[in-house]
């Protein structure tokens, strides 16, 4: 029998095979070979692409290099979204490997945040965790942690150390025995079809009458367009970490097991592939 712990491992060790190609208009001294890499789904693009950067910088002149950014089929990729989310949202129906175009100039200021250093990623990551804990435990757990615990969470992510990360993160996933779950579930729902970047609302894991809310309950409440009418055809996929959990799945369980390291459930609503 498979244990719930294995889910955590599977989620953590999710990898997306990616092919990085340099944008055709970038000026190079010699031809740039594509670069192949397994990207951790739970990490951030700018955190795991040092090798990519080095690879392409080798064929470029120093003066042609400014801040690196990535694009997929014309969409600039937000580095502050986890990689898995970007893939699910934009590329889940396309063939593998994932073809990402690497840019070194014309930074799309409107679409992307700058990422001057790893500190920016750390700051973003930690603020997400703090926000999530504010929702889950009124920030009590994160505030009780020591500085080194915070550091350990970040280092765990940065170094892809599952044990190191979860040794601390499990405390963020606890809740009082007398409650049936977190105060609110930290989640964000993304749709490619809308302008709005994502939906985020207060939503409790347990209904007033005591029964557990499910993924379906959440969607019905905050994003009713995502779910098909009872008799209607399924138009959308509800995807987390590249899988489609059943709408009956309890939200609390999802939050404990399928959250990204930033402690949010990042849920992608994508149109059902037509074929």
């Amino acid at each position, binding site marked *: *029998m*498979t*244990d*719930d*712990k*294995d*889910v*955590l491992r*599977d*989620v953590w*060790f*999710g*990898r*997306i*095979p990616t092919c990085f190609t340099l944008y055709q208009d970038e000026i190079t001294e010699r031809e740039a070979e594509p670069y*192949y*890499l*397994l*990207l*951790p789904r739970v*990490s951030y693009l700018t955190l*795991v*692409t040092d*090798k990519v950067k080095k690879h392409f910088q080798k064929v470029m002149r120093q003066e042609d290099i400014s801040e690196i950014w990535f694009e997929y089929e014309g969409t600039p990729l937000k580095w502050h979204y986890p990689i898995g989310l970007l893939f699910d949202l934009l590329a889940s129906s396309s063939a*593998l*490997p994932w073809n990402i175009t690497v840019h070194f100039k014309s930074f799309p200021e409107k679409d992307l945040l700058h990422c001057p250093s790893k500190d920016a990623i750390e700051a973003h990551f930690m603020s997400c965790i703090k926000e999530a804990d504010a929702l889950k435990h009124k920030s009590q757990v994160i505030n009780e942690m020591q500085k080194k615990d915070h550091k350990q969470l970040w280092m765990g992510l*940065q*170094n*892809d*150390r599952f*044990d*190191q990360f*979860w*040794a601390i993160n*499990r405390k963020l996933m606890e*809740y009082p*025995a007398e*409650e*049936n*779950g977190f105060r609110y579930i930290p989640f964000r729902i993304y749709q490619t079809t809308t302008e709005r970047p994502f939906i985020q609302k207060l939503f409790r894991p*347990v209904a007033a*009458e*005591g*029964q*557990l809310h499910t993924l379906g309950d959440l969607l019905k409440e905050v994003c009713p367009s995502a779910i098909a009418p009872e008799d209607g055809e399924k138009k959308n996929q509800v995807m987390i*970490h*590249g*899988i*489609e*959990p*059943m709408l*009956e*799945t*309890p939200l*609390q*369980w999802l939050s404990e*097991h*399928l959250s990204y390291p930033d402690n949010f459930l990042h849920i992608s609503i994508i149109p059902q592939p037509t074929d």
Partner: protein
Amino acid sequence: MVTAESSQGPPGPNHPWAGSQDTDPHPSVTSFPPATAAMPSSALWAVDLFGRVHTLSTAGQYWELCRDTQLEFRRVSAATQCCWGIACDNQVYVYVCSSDVPIRRREEAYENQRWNPVSGFCDTLLLSDRCPWSDVSGLQHRPLDGVALPSPHWEWESDWYVDENFGGEPTEKGGWTYAIDFPATYTRDKKWNSCVRRRKWIRYRRYKSRDSWAKIPSKEDPKQLPDPFNDLSVGGWEVTEEPVGHLSVWAVSLQGKVWYREDVSHPNPEGSSWSLVDAPEEVAQISCGPYDLLWATLWEGQALVREGINRNNPKGSSWSIVEPPTSENGIMHVSVGVGVVWAVTKDRKVWFRRGVNSHNPCGTSWVEMVGEMLMVNVGLNDQVWGIGCEDRAMYFRQGVTPSELSGKTWKAIVAGRECDQSHCGSSSSLLSAGCFFGDEVRSSGDSAPSDTDASLEVEKPGPALPLLAESLDNPRNPKGSSAAGPGTGRTAEGAMGNACPAQGRGEAAQASGPDKCPGPASTPAELPWTNIDLKEPRKAPSHSAAGIPETTGLSSLGLLPLGLEEHCGVDDQPLWAWVSGGGCAVEACSVLKWFTVQPGLSPSVQTLSLSITPAQTAAWRKQIFQQLTERTKRELENFRHYEQAVEQSVWVKTGALQWWCDWKPHKWVDVRVALEQFTGHDGARDSILFIYYVVHEEKKYIHVFLNEVTVLVPGLNEAKHSFALYTPERTRQRWPVHLAATTEQDLNDWLALLSLSCCESRKVHGRPSPQAIWSITCKGDIFVSEPSPDLEAHEHLLPCDQMFWRQMGGHLRLVEANSRGVVWGIGYDNTAWVYTGGYGGGCFQGLASSTSNIYTQSDVKCVYIYENQRWNPVTGYTSRGLPTDRYMWSDATGLQECTKAGTKPPSLQWTWVSDWSVDFSVPGGTDQEGWQYASDFPASYHGYKTMKDFVRRRCWARKCKLVTTGPWLEVAPITLGDVSIIPEMPDSSRSGHSIALWAVSDKGDVLCRLGVSELNPAGSSWLHIGTDQPFASVSIGACYQVWAVARDGSAFYRGSVSPSQPAGDCWYHIPPPPKQRLKQVSVGQTSVYALDENGNLWYRQGITPSYPQGSSWEHVSNNVRRVSVGPLDQVWVIADKVQGSHSLSRGTVCHRTGVQPREPQGQGWDYGIGGGWDHISVRASATRAPWSASQEEEPSAPQEAHGPVCC
């Protein structure tokens, strides 16, 4: 050679071997409930206003109506196995809960014969002789047909038969034992001067009235007026530690007399007779605690306290009087526990008595508690229940712990009733439960509690529990009695109180004398009920009451119907009259489902919720597992050659620990410790533990590769948070690396991390395989090892010091496994546990632990110390010894000083749960005060004083308790002494069959578990196997050979056990080796090994399929503590002492080498992990590397061919 002849002859055609070849014609298709159904539970007993008895299980959430519904009751008083009650017919009844183990008692009679030259031995005796049929003493005539059943609640089990067993040996001569004359010493053998002989006839009777109310014959004395019982209380089960299960049953009659029921015990549930206990005044109500507390209330309002109750005198010796908290409001009701007294006064206030204990049963002072109750009842663990005064709801006192006996708040029990539950299907019951499950206390404030009639109160000063009596007076008039419902009762009383005598029904006595008929208690003008400890504020009833002055009973009847519907609707709570928690085991850590809607997914109850909607729950989880697997395949399978974005780096944990240094003098030295993890070239992860120390100002370190570590053993040192780390080399040296942390948390962090790293480097994780080898240390820690196929290879055995052991959460004394993954354990407190399939628990939190299948587990054991005294001519025995004597307070050896105050629990995980008490159950017996006498220290002690005895000692015991977590679920309610599961080959075609599991209860009953399977490892029920004496050990072999050891040290073979006849047919008595008493037996594929009390290991010779009992015992080894024979006939033992190169270890795992089909006794021993091991089970380990080409060669014996001899 002693042969195993038996009066019943050799086994019939269906001997075990034949049986094993049988194919079961009825493969089991029954689907068993999931293991979680075996949650241990005990029950709260209560009586509602209609006199119906209900029980509420600690594991349940519905009140269940008592199975025997013929009677209506006024009072009940429960113990764990039974409940006593007074019914509305004023008769006393006892309800004995059913159990898989019957209550059976042996009747004995002796047949006596004398020899004369004419007719040989015959029943013509001398005139001075005893009767031909007598009791054991010969003084009483006892013909077989004159032995009658004591009551209609008993039945005979079988006819009389001759007992063939004489002191562990079969007589082989029709049970006759011989002597020169009556009375004399009897022997098995007839001698030339044997003039008389006798034999014992035995017959068992069984108590049959279980799960029903059995009437106790009334104490009617024709010379006196009938004086029916008014109150009754059961307790005293902790006064003696004896397994007979003594109960003290006290009753109070309407005339205020106190009665005690003699000889009530588990094997004699009805007791024998009522005896009168003098009381100074007329008693109204009585309460007997589990231990030596007994309080009663007087009609005058004081409390009466019994003093001098002890194991020799459970009735106590004298009374003292305790005044009520306030003189104007006398005590109406009292209830006592082990160390607490709760009382309710006439104004319904609840009081807690401070300072109550065995030495001072009267306590010191009263403390007023919040809340108004009609009654309170103290149950097991001093937990408290009450019935609310206004709403007649049931309340549980939350937060009662040993350190805070008065608890924190009253919490309403809002469990529904069975009948409510039955309205809806089981799947929807949880949801529909939501409508009547609430966390709030229902307010009854507006249901018009009336004012009190002052004049009535004067007239009826009786400590009234009026509603009870009243409503029971009209049991067939539910409308009327329910009209006496919440809050209104007191007004109804006025009217109905007068109606009482008219109704007769044995209440005549009530009308005369002090009116014991319901006397209304006064409602104080201002109710002291505060809202502080209740979740929802309640309206003060007095306000509304003020609006209805002088309500008469009739008017309240008229007023009520509106409220009535509200309160007696299907969804609402019953109105309670009485509650008893004497059988209800609630502990501080218990999770009760009585108060709220069930949480769906909190880890502790996850599996329970699974059992509610298994299909649905499984579907979404299965889908996630499956999709993740598919995702990994899709996204990784073809791309494994891609480079990883993030390179693995070294992660170091460092810290400060203490190390038991390698050089002399050995002591703890401060060290820095660092753990470095790295990824090897093959992608495997490994770690190195560095220990940096300073010696002579020089920095040095030792290091340990974690892939070489074979076991991490926690807490071998009582005073320190320490652990020991072994490698194969350290195992051979018997000298582990001892490390200690400063705090328990620190220790647990290190243990969990190191253990995880060890498992990772060996790629061991998740649940142990079904074939795992289990072992237990003397600390109760559980270890499990994955057997390598080379372990039982025919040649080149894997040395067992290389076995890797990892720890499982939990605490056990014994564990037994089977290769189909069924694992059972027994705790130190003899609780039976079944393995849930999880892993981790205890200090292994987070990743090292499975999320589900981990439960709270507790264990209790005793710490013993000895009080030693020496006799001197002036003062007799005193605690002043000779200068050369041992400590006057010492351990068993006398070498260590152990005082009551200075003795600590065995480790920091344990806490005391009782006070010191004298242990009377020591071998050799004691006198009445527990003393054992001897001529000098140390010597053999006896339980009586002689002229030559100059010293004496007595044993004091104190219970301590440990609470931990682990993958174990209790198999309630029968506690076990030993258990054995059939060893099977993994490829065996039996997978459809249920798994044979045999056990011996801690009382010595032999039991066979039915319905055990991979899916339901806990099984469904016990089948009791009758024996003529208590047993100690049992083992079932692969071919259904069941062997057992009786407490007299002899062995028994059970004939004809097979899948279709799981209980077999009869026992064949097998004498032990000469002058030895066996204590354990283990049966493998064909081998039978037994262990005696002197540590000798014996192999049973001459076993053949046609003669499964074998012919004789062959000595194999000494120095053995425990043996386990596996399905390959492999033999593993725990050796007592093993000398290593650096040190000696006690309790060492050893593996018998050279065991072969033609030489099943083997040749020598291979030594494995040691130092404090107590138990091993290899009975699941059924794989072996196949023969290699050179199979004909004799395997070389690595050790000399003698026992694991100590040096």
